[in-house]
């Protein structure tokens, strides 16, 4: 019983932290809109909003329209074949975790690669897919594969794909606004004439700093959200499979695994995977999409 409580505490803590980080992201967006208005439209926030909101929505629309099919073809994945025993057992595991989560069963896909990895995608549980590498099917023990499936199912259950889609769109919008302001200031357009020369110098400096720093902070915030969601999926996965050890062992195996050759993954889909296919940081980094694998293992083992 005590064990279970701990998992629930992890879940609660992670949810709270995600809310903080998302709030910070919204604040960043508000701040850059303010700076945008201040520098280009003589402090008229409404005109700035009239530009900024369509830009943000446009970005959301673009990232949202990237279909599952695009991601599937970017990874070269194919539907799992129930005639191959390994893949049949994988399909069973996906069904198991869907039952445990009380969600519709996602489609099972397989990607040919020696790496041990897996990802889930789909903005709604109804059309989600879970994909694993053939390496994972070969090298993971049944309870480890189950742990990985539980992690992916948790991403689906927590609507992480949707959250990350919207977040990356906001990052894009902030970057674009910042770029716009820079360009206009270089051209000498905008503010000068409008503010009748008596602009508050402090505000001006703050606004310029915001324009410079906001895109960097936005990027860092996005990465922080991504890491929080990984932790959350780990603890939710532990709760779903009632077996944190399975996932911990799987992560350990991923860490120790020395795949032959380069991962056949495009950089754009890398954040989707259970472990970053390109680098396995042992230490934490603010630039990482995933938390350090050692820390993830440690947390799972403490549940």
């Amino acid at each position, binding site marked *: 019983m005590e064990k279970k409580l701990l998992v629930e505490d992890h879940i609660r803590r992670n949810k709270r932290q995600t809310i903080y980080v998302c709030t910070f992201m919204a604040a960043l967006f508000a701040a850059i809109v303010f700076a945008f208005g201040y520098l280009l439209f003589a402090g008229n926030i409404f005109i700035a909003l009239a530009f900024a909101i369509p830009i943000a929505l446009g970005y959301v629309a673009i990232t949202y329209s990237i279909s599952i099919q695009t991601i599937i073809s970017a990874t070269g994945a194919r539907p799992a074949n129930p005639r191959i025993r390994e893949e049949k057992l994988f399909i069973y595991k996906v069904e198991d975790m869907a*039952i445990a989560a009380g969600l519709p069963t996602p489609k099972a896909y397989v990607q040919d690669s020696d790496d041990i990895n897996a990802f889930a995608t789909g903005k709604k549980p109804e059309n989600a897919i879970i994909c694993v590498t053939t390496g994972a099917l070969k090298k993971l023990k049944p309870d480890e594969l189950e742990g990985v499936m539980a992690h992916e199912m948790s991403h689906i259950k927590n609507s992480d794909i949707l959250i990350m889609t919207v977040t990356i769109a906001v990052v894009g919008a902030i970057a674009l606004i910042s770029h716009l302001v820079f360009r206009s200031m270089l051209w000498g357009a905008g503010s000068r004439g409008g503010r009748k020369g008596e602009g508050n110098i402090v505000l001006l400096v703050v606004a310029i700093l915001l324009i410079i720093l906001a895109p960097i902070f936005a990027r860092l915030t996005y990465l922080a959200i991504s890491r929080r969601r990984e932790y959350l999926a780990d603890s939710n996965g532990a709760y779903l499979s009632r077996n944190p050890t399975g996932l911990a062992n799987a992560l350990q195996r991923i860490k120790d695994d020395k795949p032959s050759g380069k991962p056949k993954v495009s950089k754009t889909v890398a954040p989707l995977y259970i472990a970053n296919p390109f680098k396995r940081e042992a230490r934490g980094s603010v630039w990482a999409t995933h938390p350090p694998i050692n820390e993830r293992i440690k947390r799972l083992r403490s549940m």
Partner: protein
Amino acid sequence: MIEWIALILVIIIVVLFIAIYIGYYNRIIRLENRIDNSWAQIDVQLRRRAELIPNLMETVKGYMKHERETLENVTKARSAIMKAKSPQESINADNMLTGALKTLFAVAENYPDLKANQNFLNLQDELTNTENKIAYSRQHYNDTVLIFNNMIETWPGKFFAKRMNKVTREMLQIPEASREVPKVKF
């Protein structure tokens, strides 16, 4: 003037109360339906599992001539599942079946020919699969019951549940010994 304000206040309070009541009513009913639905899930898997047994018996019969008791236990457990009336009865019968199958698969280790039989291997996979699915649907059932019970035992849900004559649901109990999924060797 005061009368008007009082009247409006009363109307607001009544409307608010009705809205909250509807909200809780729907949530309680939805949760109850989810419990029934997750029971249906368990039942589907139990039946699937029971249906695999005759097939298994057919395959095994030829090889395991001297294991009458083991085979009989499996058949007995299967008919217990078919006859079960309450959820808890079904679960108990299923636990019996799990135990009987565990013995059967352990005994099967002594029959190399049987172990090489493709049909037998497939059935073993299928039985493990349904076993896991039963375990997970049972877990989901209990998770849902927990949410439901928390809902109707804490305020303000308790207030509405009482008026709807809702009582807490029983979780499915699993004997400690059968918590472990049988390890089927390959």
